């Protein structure tokens, strides 16, 4: 099998190969993780002590804004698409994605979108005063309307949306049309299932986000008043539209993570996934519920009490399918023959800490108490438990799990475990105390605070610096694995099941040119 492809930069610019594009997505996500992570370091450095020491308040707001946007749209989502590109064709026995040129375009939009997002930081005015977007990743109107370089932000969001929608169309087309003979839907690996459902979520909500930013655009530059009360518009409308996108978006980031974990735990427990069908139904149930709970982000805006009751009931319902998932993972481990290689450690870390984030999510869903938690560090702690020790942990677990297949080399097990323990201890030092300062009354998104919050903030910052530094180790491990290491076998893990483990490591440039037969 000879691989015809250009070399050098042209290989990457013009590639239509799902593995190359997967690699591009993953590296893009990694770079964005480091960029967004360094912004988090600025935030933690400023919050290390009360008083303003490092940056101006507006620069601080810009850091929280860009940190959130970059991590959500630049790191977590592209990393998940990277996994989909690499794994979905190999897991369903397809030679490539269904729409390879669209695939190329989906990726290459991203660097331009990211550039538009951060470029205003360096434009006009005093850099240290923060010239980039500084209105929070939720970009609530009318605050965002005050920003004088809003067009950059709006076009960045539009481009991100195009990319996501095209990527989703591709994933759905691939899964529906290119499964190997015998691979019925209910035989698909769970990772494929979770991405199928995620892709539908993306197609449903990205246009809603596009609508929101288009209304912002015409409000700012063409004299409309969708969100401007003085012109007869409604600032709360913005929040409804945003969260109708924003809540499913949360599940867009976590469902593929569920998929990765559901591949890893059975492998290292040497036991089939418990309740496969119920896992599929639970994923679909979570996806459905995600559309009907959005206003739980807005309990304090002054909704009618009937609305608040409805959104409370609907929100806490999400705990049911989520609990089913956690129980199924636990039951998969039960009476298995477990080993604890690095991917398994990250996966177990995920189950523990995502569960903590799930519990605080339940607490936040109960409206009367949310009036106290809302917009405090309790919320910050909650969503970092689900997104860092949830989504990011699953991504890292997935990298360790599949990198031998991608590169043909084993990663360094000792360093991988060190990476896990450093990260897991520091991430809890980082985020657990944020529950306490939140309950004590510290609002989120403030650059300076009363000294009563000082102790926990300092501890949280120390955890943050350690967690940040630990990810440099991850970069080092990944590069080392690409460069060399113990050769990986086709079936990398003793308990591995699935089509991707039937092909050699590294996976050849073209796989499954003849479809495998699934019995």
């Amino acid at each position, binding site marked *: 099998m000879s691989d015809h492809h250009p070399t050098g930069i042209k290989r990457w610019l013009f590639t239509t190969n799902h593995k190359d594009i997967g690699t591009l997505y993953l590296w893009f996500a990694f770079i964005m993780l480091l960029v967004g992570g360094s912004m988090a370091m600025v935030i933690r450095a400023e919050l290390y002590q009360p008083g303003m020491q490092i940056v101006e*308040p507006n620069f601080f707001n810009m850091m929280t804004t860009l940190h959130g946007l970059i991590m959500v749209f630049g790191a977590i989502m592209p990393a998940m698409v990277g996994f989909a590109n690499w794994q979905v064709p190999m897991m369903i026995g397809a030679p490539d994605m269904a729409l390879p040129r669209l695939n190329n375009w989906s990726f290459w939009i991203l660097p331009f979108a990211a550039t538009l997002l951060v470029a205003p930081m360096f434009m006009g005015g005093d850099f240290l005063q923060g010239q980039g977007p500084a209105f929070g990743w939720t970009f609530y109107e009318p605050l965002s309307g005050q920003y004088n370089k809003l067009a950059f932000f709006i076009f960045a969001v539009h481009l991100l949306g195009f990319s996501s929608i095209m990527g989703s169309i591709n994933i759905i087309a691939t899964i529906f049309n290119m499964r190997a003979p015998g691979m019925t839907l209910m035989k698909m690996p769970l990772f494929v299932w979770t991405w199928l459902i995620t892709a539908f979520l993306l197609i449903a909500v990205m246009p809603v986000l596009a609508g929101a930013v288009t209304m912002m655009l015409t409000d700012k530059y063409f004299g409309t008043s969708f969100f401007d009360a003085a012109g007869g518009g409604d600032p709360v409308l913005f929040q409804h539209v945003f969260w109708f996108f924003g809540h499913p978006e949360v599940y867009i980031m976590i469902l593929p993570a569920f998929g990765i974990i559901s591949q890893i735990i059975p492998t290292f427990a040497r036991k089939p996934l418990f309740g496969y069908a119920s896992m599929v139904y639970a994923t679909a149930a979570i996806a459905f519920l995600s559309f009907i709970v959005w206003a739980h982000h807005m309990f304090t805006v002054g909704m009618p009490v009937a609305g608040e009751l409805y959104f409370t009931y609907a929100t806490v319902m999400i705990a049911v399918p989520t609990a089913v998932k956690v129980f199924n993972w636990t039951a998969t481990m039960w009476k298995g023959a477990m080993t*604890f290689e690095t991917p398994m450690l990250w996966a177990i870390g995920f189950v523990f800490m995502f569960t903590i984030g799930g519990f605080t999510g339940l607490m936040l869903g109960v409206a009367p108490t949310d009036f106290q938690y809302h917009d405090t560090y309790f919320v910050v702690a909650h969503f970092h438990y689900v997104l860092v020790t949830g989504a990011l942990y699953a991504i890292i677990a997935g990298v360790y799990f599949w990198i031998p297949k991608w590169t043909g080399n084993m990663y360094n097990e000792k360093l991988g475990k060190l990476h896990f323990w450093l990260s897991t201890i520091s991430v809890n030092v980082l985020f657990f105390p944020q529950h306490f300062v939140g309950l004590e009354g510290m609002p989120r998104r403030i650059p300076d605070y009363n000294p009563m919050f000082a102790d926990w903030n300092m501890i949280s910052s120390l955890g943050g610096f350690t967690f940040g530094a630990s990810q440099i180790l991850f970069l080092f491990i990944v590069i080392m694995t690409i460069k060399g290491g113990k050769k990986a076998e086709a079936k990398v893990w003793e308990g591995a099941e699935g089509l991707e483990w039937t092909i050699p490591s590294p996976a050849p440039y073209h796989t499954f040119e003849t479809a495998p037969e699934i019995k």
Partner: protein
Amino acid sequence: MSASKTIKILSRLLCAALLFSPAIAFADYELNLAPGVTEVSQMQYDLHMLVLWICTVAGIGVFAVMIYSIISHRKSKGAQAAQFHESTTVEVIWTVIPFAILVAIAVPATSGLLMLESTDKADVNIKVTGIQWKWEYNYIDEDGVKFISQLPAAHRKASKLGSGEDVTTIENYLLEVDNPATADDLADGYIVVPEKKRVRLLITAKNVIHAWWVPALGVKRDAIPGYINESWFYAEERGIYRGQCAELCGKGHGFMPIVVKVVSQADYVSWISKQKGLASASAGEDSKTFTMAELMKRGEAVYNSSCAGCHQSTGEGITGAFPAIKGSKIATGNKAGHINIVKNGKPGTAMAAFGSQLSKADLAAVITFERNAFGNKKGDMVQPSDIK
């Protein structure tokens, strides 16, 4: 390690944790929600503890099973993997149990929410307006009692980047307010309310969304331009309760505190009459004619408390965000244009309409100051009578 040995170790760890629990209970105020001083805040606290305990018990249950499995069912101890992988009965059980628990949470949540949102008649009505970055309070039943409440100058100075001040020595740092019109007495910026009376808050905002939050009163409500949101509290105990803005509202978001002082009915009545006195004194000033020196002195003070946050104390503004006053076309142009922008603000920007925040005398003074400071040399004066 056998299962029984594992359980022994776990129970020892639990004992150790219990041993330390008095210390944890002692440090309670630093770790947990405070019960507060209103029926609503106490309901929130109870509901919070209920859900927290449910989560804790459920968490310990799930984690215990996982930890047991991790310790016992490992290959290195010769465990053989079982091959069971589904059971409808089990799935039904662990779908129904969480559902039942949720119903148990939903019942108190519903009654709590109905109490929190009740709209019974109130004894005191206060209109609260969020402005970038201060609060305006208007006692709508007490004609003319209306004032601005903002972070005192000393806190603003200490919170400047690189101020070099040790903020831990400042009492109630960033949780203190004053009334810029009478900055000598901090308490003039406090919202004063009587104890054991129902206080209704009608909450709105000038140009962006803020949120009025005092944890001890159990009130957090968004202040939204174009909306008047309603909330209420009934304080059981006298005291001073502090909070701050809880919705990102721009660069001054962290510097928008709230202080509520709950006093006896008698003290409340005398406070109201003092406030009415202040209001009529300031109305008297609005018909006065000032000298240039008086206007400049007064104008500088107003500038520093109301304008310098954005336009900077040097009048140079921040390039790309807030325009300079120094050499500005407006401040060196005709009086009417200058008065117009200060009084009515500029929609779509952070420039607020100060006509409703400052007295005519203060407006006249600050406009005169801006026309004759920072190297601007118009030499003209604006008198309160010029402000229409």
